[in-house]
């Protein structure tokens, strides 16, 4: 098992935002998280990554058989969890190229920064400071270039297609597919958890399972395509009801 989340409760500033979440993601599987704005999707990703401000009050997170519930962020990353943030911070004075070089070296994967950037038509932005003055679409690319260098086993993607034009979605989709080893069948070990509103990413990345979050609770899990179609036609509430 890659990731097991058991009865997870998470608080932000004293307010519980996630209630008793249970989820399992096997190696090689890609799962999708659906839910309205404010339903707790990003909080779940942040809690898995271990960011401060997302306080775990109950339950546990197991990754590769190890309890990581209270592990520092960098140790989770070094165990193989990687995240593409929806709104990453700007870091002045730190060049994107320098960070990607460092991440590549760290993962024994150095010297490929330009290659990664080329695959996303991002080369000219490598000389920019991290996320400084980047558009929404460029930020997504920056996140993916970093993830390519980091090469994690569990990939958390927070709305990888929001704010991105159609041509670039195809480009991002291709890279995400590769990150998740979608070209491999039997040997695939990489798993993913993707937040999407538009569902567009599903056109590029085949997902194994969908989950619906409503008001901080997991309401149902199932075939991601079917769930997305239901949500599109009847809304989130209806999707939750039909599964009951």
């Amino acid at each position, binding site marked *: 098992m890659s990731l097991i989340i058991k009865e997870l409760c998470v608080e932000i500033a004293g307010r519980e935002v996630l209630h008793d979440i249970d989820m399992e993601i096997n190696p090689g599987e890609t799962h999708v998280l659906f839910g309205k704005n404010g339903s707790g999707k990003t909080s779940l990703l942040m809690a898995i*990554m271990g*960011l401060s401000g997302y306080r775990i009050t109950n339950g546990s997170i197991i990754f590769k058989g190890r309890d990581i519930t209270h592990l520092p*962020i*960098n140790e989770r*990353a070094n165990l193989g969890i990687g995240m593409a*943030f929806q709104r*990453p*911070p700007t870091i002045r*004075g730190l060049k994107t190229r320098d*960070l990607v070089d460092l991440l590549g070296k760290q993962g024994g994967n150095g010297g490929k920064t330009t290659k990664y950037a080329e695959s996303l038509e991002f080369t000219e932005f490598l000389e920019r400071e991290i996320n400084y003055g980047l558009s929404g679409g460029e930020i997504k690319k920056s996140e993916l270039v970093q993830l390519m260098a980091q090469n994690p086993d569990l990939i958390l993607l927070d709305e990888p297609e929001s704010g991105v034009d159609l041509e670039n979605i195809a480009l991002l989709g291709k890279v995400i597919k590769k990150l998740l080893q979608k070209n491999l069948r039997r040997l695939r070990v990489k798993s993913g958890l993707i937040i999407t509103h538009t569902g567009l990413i599903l056109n590029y990345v085949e997902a194994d399972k969908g989950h619906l979050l409503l008001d901080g609770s997991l309401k149902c899990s199932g075939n991601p395509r079917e769930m997305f179609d239901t949500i599109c036609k009847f809304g989130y509430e209806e999707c939750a009801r039909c599964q009951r």
Partner: protein
Amino acid sequence: MSKIKEKAKAAKEKKALYGTDVDLAAFKSKATEHAYQDSLEKIPPDSQRGMTEAGIVLSEEGRAGSYIQMDHSPVHCSIREEGVEILPIVEALKRYDGLEDYWWQAMAVDADKYTAHAELELHNGYFIRVSKGVKALFPVQACLYLGEEGIAQHVHNIIIAEEGSELHVITGCTTAPNLARALHIGVSEFYVKRGATLTFTMIHNWGEEVAVRPRTAVWVEEGGTYLSHYVCMKPARSLQTDPTVRLLGKGAVTRLNTILVAGKGSEMDVGGRVHLEAPDTKAEVVSRTISTGGNIISRGLLVGYVPGVKAHLECNGLMLSETGYIRAIPELDGRIAGVEMSHEAAVGKISRQEIEYLMSRGISEADATALIVRGFLRVEMEGIPAELKKEIDRAVEESGKSLM
């Protein structure tokens, strides 16, 4: 007695506008002589180390020339590129009849007691000139070294970039490793003539109890460019300086970058003033300051006298300690309609979000902090050749090792 001397005498007790008042009588005005060395490699190893950290290349490889002064003695002076002239200032004064057009022209001798004392008791300094049209390939390096306990070192430096010339000067000021207390007063007058470019990088690595009072004034003529990069990342008991640049000719440009790190017990009051006195002049004053327990006042002043001049001021401070303070004091002074001047100032601590973002990439908290601090101190400056930029970055890195 000359008029200059008279003025200096009258200003002997005149307190400076800013900074703690230093008791000049508490420092010895005589110092032991040091022998002249024909090679920098003959300088004692202890002193060599400090010089290297302050950016001095001992082999002089890749340098247009060197001026090295220890305490009051010029110990080495060499020229390796044609069109570049380097002399101890005392010799230059003799050779050029008192350097009338330059000596105390940009800087007032009676500005305060420090300038006055530099005139009344001169302990040498450098004279650097690049001839008309000469574009020096390599930088000139200068080092003002304090080795003797308790002394005062009063230097007066002059740099002249003649018409259409280009010159880079790297100055490293440093102290002997075991030196506790001393005083450095450095008067610097720079003259950038029509169409010339002067890039001046100053790296200060002082001892913990050293008082430092640089007094710098720069005149930039039409089409001239003056770029300054000042780095002081080692503790100094008391540092106060407020370099002033006058953009006198049409289209003159200046950029002043300052990088300061104040450790516990350090008092740093550092400014940068630019007077935009001619049409189409441009200025940028940028400071990045970090307090690891010390006190910093970061000043900046832009004065616009002509419509259409453009200038920007930026003071950013990072508090890395619970004690100490950073005060950013940016000032804009528009004297006529149509000047375009702006400023931004920010003082804060390292953002938790930035640290955690880097940690989510597998970087430890300590390394993430170092990356952010290093990024904060990296000030981009247009117009600096890549080689020199690398060298400045290296110096910042070298100087800030303990911090990063």
